[in-house]
């Protein structure tokens, strides 16, 4: 399967695909640099605009945004102690003290190089691990695929942490939304209430934009921040290429943090912030001068930034091979694949190898581009974004949300539906119901149902077919492990 990886390369090197990655990385850095905006929101707003585009161009944009945003979050984290994205919290620990000592430029250079290294490692892990995993999963039948969907849903609910009941409510809500529309097996209309617009089901973009874009927009519009108070040093004048040789002393941290980030990325529900915290602590524990940490130690920035970028492409390993995204952004990306008619899962590698392997290359190029784009413009240019008026930005996103959702089918019905999901998103956000299980429920709900019914048809209605093969039994054990581990942990704590 690796030969297909090489065969996909010429397609990615076409000028329009490369430009898409460049634009994506730049846009991602801008989005990440603005506190309150995240890669998840940016990609969910962007997805509808990629409808008419070639799938590789669309995916290049998404890969670029994801890579760029994970680094962009470091800019306000270093300069203002405000993490641009949740994953950049650990970057503030040493980045901000460095900026206060007039070394903000150096901190950002360490951040951009470390982000690029983490991103490269992540892309390589995706290239190495996804193809063999996809080949294994190709052997799965409908019963195994049903259990895979159950594993995916439960793992994101149980491993995400927080309130389990709320997580399960989110997942059930997502599954219920996935069931709206005509049942493709027997033609029954489910929850359509006489609206012909609902016969084809609810478009994933409508849900994504409502859930993920509405809460940040509300926050942007209603949270007043006096940007005139923002102060940051403009000390970075040194070329990034001169600075890199000095950073080579961080190589151990880069390797360890990359591995931690990749591992966390593969685990469903964990995400960049956990990766950054774990790597920071690990690097501090192994440091010769741990007392310096928290007072402006560049290695701390290197550990956090390597790791939060190392989970980007790695989160796509279970997403592309099994249809189980490791993070919220990966879930949104699955939505991006779906709107281009690409069903995530093992068949994707067989049916559209040029797209799936091209996507992997795009992640690699996006990470490499970070050094060129983020490095050369690192401090002052992107830091100016922090001064953009939030209400104007918020009103612009309202317009973009409208255009994006309306453009899907050119009908107002979808826009009103998006508003309903927006209200749900705000309520869930305020009450701390996790959002990724909703998206995963929508993606995996109908997939699980389809495979369950197919299994029952094959087994002539006998439910024991779901536990007949060894793979099914292993997957059932994993399901039990996922459910019981946190419960036992909680019981022990109480």
């Amino acid at each position: 399967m690796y030969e297909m990886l090489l065969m996909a390369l010429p397609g990615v090197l076409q000028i329009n695909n490369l430009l898409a990655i460049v634009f994506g990385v730049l846009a991602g850095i801008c989005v990440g640099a603005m506190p309150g905006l995240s890669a998840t929101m940016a990609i969910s707003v962007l997805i509808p605009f990629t409808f008419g585009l070639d799938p590789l161009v669309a995916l290049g944009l998404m890969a670029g945004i994801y890579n760029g945003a994970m680094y962009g979050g470091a800019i306000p984290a270093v300069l203002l102690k405000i993490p641009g994205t949740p994953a950049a919290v650990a970057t503030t620990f040493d980045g901000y003290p460095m900026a206060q000592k007039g070394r903000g430029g150096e901190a950002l250079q360490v951040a951009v190089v470390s982000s690029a290294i983490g991103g490269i490692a992540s892309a390589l892990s995706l290239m190495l691990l996804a193809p063999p995993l996809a080949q294994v999963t190709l052997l799965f039948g409908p019963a195994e695929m049903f259990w895979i969907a159950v594993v995916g849903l439960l793992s994101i609910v149980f491993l995400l942490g927080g309130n389990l009941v709320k997580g399960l409510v989110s997942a059930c809500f997502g599954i219920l939304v996935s069931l709206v529309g005509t049942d493709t097996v027997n033609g029954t209309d489910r929850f359509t209430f006489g609206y012909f617009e609902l016969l084809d089901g609810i478009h994933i973009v409508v849900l994504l934009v409502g859930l993920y874009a509405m809460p940040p927009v509300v926050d942007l519009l209603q949270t007043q921040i006096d940007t005139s108070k923002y102060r940051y040093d403009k000390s970075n004048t040194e070329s990034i290429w001169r600075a890199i040789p000095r950073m080579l002393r961080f190589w151990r941290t880069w390797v360890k943090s990359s591995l931690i980030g990749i591992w966390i990325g593969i685990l469903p529900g964990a995400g960049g912030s956990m990766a950054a915290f774990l790597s920071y602590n690990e690097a501090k524990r192994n440091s010769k001068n741990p007392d310096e940490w928290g007072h402006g130690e560049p290695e701390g920035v290197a550990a956090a930034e390597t790791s939060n970028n190392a989970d980007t492409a790695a989160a796509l390993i279970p997403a592309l091979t099994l249809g189980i995204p490791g993070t919220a952004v990966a879930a949104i990306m699955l939505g991006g694949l779906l709107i281009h008619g690409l069903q995530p899962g093992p068949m994707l590698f067989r049916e559209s190898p040029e797209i799936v392997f091209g996507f992997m290359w795009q992640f690699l190029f996006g990470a490499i581009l970070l050094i060129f784009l983020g490095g050369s413009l690192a401090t002052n240019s992107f830091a100016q974004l922090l001064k953009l008026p939030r209400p104007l930005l918020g009103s612009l996103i309202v317009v973009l949300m409208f255009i994006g959702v309306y453009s899907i089918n050119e009908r107002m019905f979808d826009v009103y539906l998006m508003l309903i999901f927006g209200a749900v998103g705000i309520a869930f956000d305020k009450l701390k119901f996790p959002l990724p299980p909703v998206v995963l429920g929508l993606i995996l709900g109908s997939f699980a149902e389809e495979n369950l019914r197919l299994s029952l048809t094959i087994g002539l209605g006998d439910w024991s077919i779901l536990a007949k093969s060894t793979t099914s039994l292993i997957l059932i054990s994993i399901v039990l492990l996922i459910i019981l581990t946190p419960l036992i942990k909680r019981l022990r704590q109480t």
Partner: protein
Amino acid sequence: MNRLLRPLTFVSLLLIVGCLYLFQEASGFKAESALLPVTMLLSLIILASILLFSDQGKTAETSAPLSLSSGKAFFVTVGFVVAVDLVGFYPTLVIGLPLIAYLFGFKNLKYLVISTALISAIIFSLFDVVMMKEFPLGIFG
């Protein structure tokens, strides 16, 4: 404060009522089409009841009061969409974009006019001219 107006209680009740209504709808489906919807609805009712009882078990201090702090921005967004439906996309864009920013505290009129003109021009050239999208015309249609 009325105990039923606690946000989590309110949302849980809303979920239970909504699920009961959908349950009635699902009872008309063919058996195999109803399997997953009914399972999900029952699960949601049970889970929402757990949330409801746990929230009611909390003291008033630990349960946050119901607030409409996000309401203004959300309803302005709803207003924008309704206005597009009624008077069309471009008139709403030209008036709505600066108005929303102004309402939420950005009062620099010069900046607002320039940015509105620029954004409107970009949207028109990109979506109308290049992508040939047809936006709602409202009463002008």
